């Protein structure tokens, strides 16, 4: 009987994987549902004896089985998209059944957790620090320092919280990991708990990810004994982007409005319910089992460049021919990512620009595509790696409209706590409309005699552009968190490189 492996990842399902699987079953094949390889343009992808076929429709199945299919891509493991990667966090992608404890244990699962059980807390923290691992949620803060702070903090109890709110457009690595290799995340959380002395963990997942939520719940049930006495519970978000910000997330778990808290106190000192809390992104925690095997920390530290250590699961999205998950050591350039690996745009038209790092990340012009993927190099270019999403736009994109969208998104998702973000975002939308309209006359209220300070004559386009610059500066330096504080990045970069789109 032929064994066919097809992913049950949400993206494969959205592309029709269930119907393809059913067609193989109807043709008397045994179908195994595995995680996704991350070659999204090929989904639904079927694997038979290591050979891949995709993207498949149910009507392709007969030809695949007869050996006459033109959807044959050869050995999946030898595909250039896979071969060029350095997969650590996604080492199991495409290869194991997500909820199989046997598959997990057979591929090295739980060995790191077993090892740390006999280690003293400071030893574990020292190894994480030595690996050079930095937070993958956006800010890139060193994980070892965070763990040490929580370890040394005093509190009635401590928590480990996994941030799985993944709200950035262009990102899906957290989702793929939770759906494809959930035990690895649980193992990473259990190790963090062991290191800092936490008893309870929470995974805060956005409500847009129903498949990840059910996989995690099932995985927690199956892994209960492995992670005991540590306990983990899934909490579901409620459609607020700002709840990805760690303090808003903590408020949300507590059952409050997802408003950002002022720091200090840091969550490491006073986090969930006022107790010391480790908050990490999914990818940060999922890297831990690889770091905590013997020699793992040194190996991690040897990958990457400068202070960006280890691997980054980069997500190629938007208008790109070969979109998907590309995990590699830091240092790769956008030219390589978009042209060599991604095959250019899906539409076949020239690339106009890319947004790296989600809705708060800068738009990057093709002239900067040799920038190495590295936290400091991006910061130096007024850009952001963020969660590693790369969204490609072709020459039909209007960068002024995208700048306007950045303000609009900020207005829709602002938590409302501080004025530059709450009000400034709406003013930004209006300003860009005015710039497009070529300036404006005083409005009815401004024209009133009592409005002594209001300007009475016409504003020019240049004056409105200056106002936009002032607004960006106010938001950048006057906002409490990065939602208001970083919205100027996409706006300013769009204005700098594509001023013609603001006329």
């Amino acid at each position, binding site marked *: 009987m032929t064994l066919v492996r097809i992913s049950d990842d949400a993206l494969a399902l959205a592309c029709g994987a269930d119907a393809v699987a059913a067609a193989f079953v109807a043709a008397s094949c045994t179908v195994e549902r595995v995680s996704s390889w991350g070659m999204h343009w090929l989904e639904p992808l079927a694997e038979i004896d290591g050979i891949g076929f995709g993207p498949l429709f149910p009507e392709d199945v007969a030809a695949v089985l007869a050996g006459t299919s033109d959807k044959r891509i050869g050995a999946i493991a030898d595909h250039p998209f896979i071969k060029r990667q350095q997969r650590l966090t996604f080492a199991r992608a495409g290869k194991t059944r997500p909820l199989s404890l046997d598959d997990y244990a057979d591929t090295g699962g739980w060995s790191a957790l077993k090892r740390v059980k006999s280690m003293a807390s400071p030893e574990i923290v020292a190894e994480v620090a030595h690996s050079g691992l930095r937070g993958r949620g956006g800010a890139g803060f060193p994980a070892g320092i965070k763990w040490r702070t929580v370890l040394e903090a005093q509190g009635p109890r401590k928590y480990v919280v996994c941030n799985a709110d993944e709200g950035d457009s262009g*990102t899906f690595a957290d989702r793929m990991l939770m759906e494809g290799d959930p035990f690895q995340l649980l193992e990473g959380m259990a190790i963090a708990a062991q290191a800092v002395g936490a008893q309870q963990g929470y995974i805060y997942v956005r409500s847009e990810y129903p498949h990840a939520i059910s996989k995690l719940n099932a995985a927690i049930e199956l892994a209960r004994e492995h992670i005991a006495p540590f306990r983990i519970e899934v909490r579901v978000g409620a459609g607020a982007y700002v709840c990805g910000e760690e303090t808003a997330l903590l408020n949300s778990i507590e059952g409050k409005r997802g408003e950002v808290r002022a720091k200090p106190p840091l969550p490491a000192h006073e986090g969930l*319910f006022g107790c010391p809390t480790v908050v990490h992104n999914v990818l940060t925690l999922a890297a831990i089992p690889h770091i905590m095997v013997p020699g793992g920390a040194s190996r991690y530290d040897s990958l990457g460049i400068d202070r960006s250590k280890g691997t980054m699961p980069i997500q190629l999205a*938007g208008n790109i021919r070969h979109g998907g998950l590309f995990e590699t050591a830091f240092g790769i350039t956008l030219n390589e990512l978009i042209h060599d690996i991604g095959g250019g745009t899906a539409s076949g038209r020239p690339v106009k620009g890319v947004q790296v790092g989600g*809705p708060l990340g800068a738009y990057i012009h093709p002239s900067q595509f040799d920038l190495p993927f590295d936290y400091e190099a991006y910061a130096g270019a007024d850009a952001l790696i963020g969660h590693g999403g790369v*969204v*490609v736009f072709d020459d039909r994109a209007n960068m002024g409209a995208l700048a306007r969208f950045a303000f609009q998104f900020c207005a829709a998702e602002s938590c409302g706590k501080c004025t530059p973000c709450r009000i400034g975002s709406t003013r930004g939308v209006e300003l860009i409309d005015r710039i497009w309209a070529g300036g404006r006359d005083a409005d009815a209220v401004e024209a009133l005699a009592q409005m002594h300070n209001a300007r009475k004559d016409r504003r020019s386009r240049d004056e409105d552009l200056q106002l936009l610059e002032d607004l960006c500066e106010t938001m950048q330096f006057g906002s409490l968190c990065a939602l208001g504080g970083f919205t100027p990045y996409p706006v300013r970069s769009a204005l700098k490189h594509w001023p013609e789109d603001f006329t």
Partner: protein
Amino acid sequence: MTRAARIVEICVSHRGREGPLLLILHDVQCEFGCVDAEAERVIAHELNLSRAEVHGVVSFYHDFSAEPDPRPCIELCRAEACQARGVEELVASAEAAAGERVRLKTVYCLGLCSVGPAARIGDRLHARLNTAALVKLVQSA
């Protein structure tokens, strides 16, 4: 059982869990299609919170609504990556097909950003949408 009694039952089922309010609101929204003023009053009473506190939470999150909307709902992603893949060109036809019968809701990212435009109906996801495919989804919703 009255609605209020059922909401009390939901509150009781989450007793003992830390910070249960969002769990309760999700259950109520799922069962009744909304969290209205009466539900807020019952929940506030059960959790020993003020009604203002509960209302503040309900109104903060996009997932909770004050009134039920019986129409079928299609959530269409209109975030950057789906814009790059042309979602905006589909919107007018989808809106026309939806009319008043179907609720076309804008969401920002479904995690399908490499195969957009993407939409969600309940827990079913749809990718690689073009105008014809989206209009068909709307019509059969």
